[in-house]
């Protein structure tokens, strides 16, 4: 094989690769659009009026997630599944966002931490790599961390909206999350950087709890305790 032949073979490979990336980018753009729509919808829970409408907002968000599932199905057709990590960076950001949104919806609904299986199910993807397009564990954890900072905001706004017991529940939840993350041995990577921000969310929520408790605003102070 001559040098020229070799290089034109490689060039063919590279341009095929670029076409795939182009296709992926288009679908990811749509996904980002949907993710923004869901985010806008959920943002309204921070409004004073939004607190009463949390269940209906969540139901609406869940409807929008069906769009995500169709778009995910489209994304899966754009590249060979065993090359997931080759193109990972194209959808990493949006997947973390979507994991956050799914986790947030689940938290608002029943105040528990979403499992990876649930997120995967909401997004219409797999949990384990062998089965196809999956949710990487780091992306899932990043999504959970985004939710933690969203919850610290929610704690503040729930006080404003005269919902004084919510911060205590959020505090318990975040503390559990924090001890969960402390079990992990993180490398010096983007996930670690994001985890470093978790302590500020914890602090913020604790301050809110403090303010509420010393003023006796919480209806049942014992529920904020160690229980």
């Amino acid at each position, binding site marked *: 094989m001559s040098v020229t032949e*070799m290089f034109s073979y490689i060039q063919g490979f590279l341009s095929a690769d670029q076409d795939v990336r182009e296709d992926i980018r288009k679908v990811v753009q749509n996904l980002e659009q949907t993710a923004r729509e869901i985010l806008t919808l959920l943002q309204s829970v921070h409004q004073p009026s939004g607190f009463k409408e949390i269940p209906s907002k969540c139901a609406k968000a869940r409807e929008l997630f069906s769009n995500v599932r169709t778009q995910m199905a489209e994304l899966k057709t754009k590249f060979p599944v065993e090359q997931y*990590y080759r193109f990972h960076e194209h959808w990493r950001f949006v997947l973390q966002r979507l994991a956050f949104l799914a986790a947030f919806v689940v938290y608002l609904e029943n105040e528990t931490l979403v499992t990876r299986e649930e997120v995967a199910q909401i997004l219409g993807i797999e949990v384990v790599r062998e089965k196809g397009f999956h949710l990487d564990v780091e992306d899932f954890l990043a999504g959970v961390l985004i939710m933690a900072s969203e919850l610290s905001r929610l704690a503040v706004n729930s006080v404003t909206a005269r919902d004084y017991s919510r911060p205590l529940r959020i505090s318990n939840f975040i503390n559990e999350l924090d001890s969960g993350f402390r*079990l992990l*041995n993180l490398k010096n990577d983007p996930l670690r950087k994001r985890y470093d921000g978790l302590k500020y969310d914890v602090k913020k929520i604790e301050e809110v709890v403090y303010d509420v408790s010393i003023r006796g605003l919480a209806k049942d102070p014992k529920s904020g305790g160690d229980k």
Partner: protein
Amino acid sequence: MNKREGEGWSRRNVEAAQERDVHANPSSAVIAAFKVFQQELDSRHDKYERLVKISRDITIESKRAIFLLHRVTNVPNAEGVLNEAEGKLDGVRQKIGQIAEELRGEDIYQFHRAFTPGIQEYVEAVSFLHYIRHRSLVSLEEINARLVFMNTENSDPKGSAEAPPSGARVLTFQVTPADYLLGVADLTGELMRLCIGSVGNGDIDTPFQLSQFLRQIHDGFSYIGNTGPYEVSKKLHTLRQSLGKVEDACYTLRVRGSEIPKHMLADVFCSRTTHMDTEEGVV
């Protein structure tokens, strides 16, 4: 006052949080989930570190093979050197076999960053040896064809149980086109050194062959241009410098070769290359 109170409160709270950690209910769903994540992340990081280590070994051994091959210009027994280099590269291939073993059933791009430097160095060494032997560019298929491993010796029962029954014994490693390209770009630097070295030994033909070969590679890279990965365009600049040096060397040989006796040519050439080197330092 407010501040101090706040501090005291938060310290107490930290203690409380730590206490909670110690007594963290191990049966809680969140903690149980995070224990699973811990295991998954740890095993992933461990694998990554192992691959980085193998990759470093590959880099070192390949570099040694390249140094050895540079000796080919000034020893009488070229074939002996080439065989020795081939032996070294066999050792490197075994290490690549270890990478293939680690990557069995994994997505190779997930860990690609861990071993790409070693693979590039290996491509460089293999293509250098191939050039010295055959005066041509080794193709990607030829490289990949040699990276097929029979999984006979260290076959752990766990590994072979995981492998699909169809390819239980044979492991392959595929060099990606991008790694190949970057390895070939590095090769041009070695060829430049070979060219300068061979003139020092009074070899007049090799520089011209090399300059022609380098020009072909350069044209190939220009053809790819910026469609390739980002690193390729970076290496293209170095390639251009190497090509310039080789072309200058050929120029000198042509111009001065016609008027100077052969035994003096080496001196002329050496002084010129040192001159070029100092120039490069300024630029």
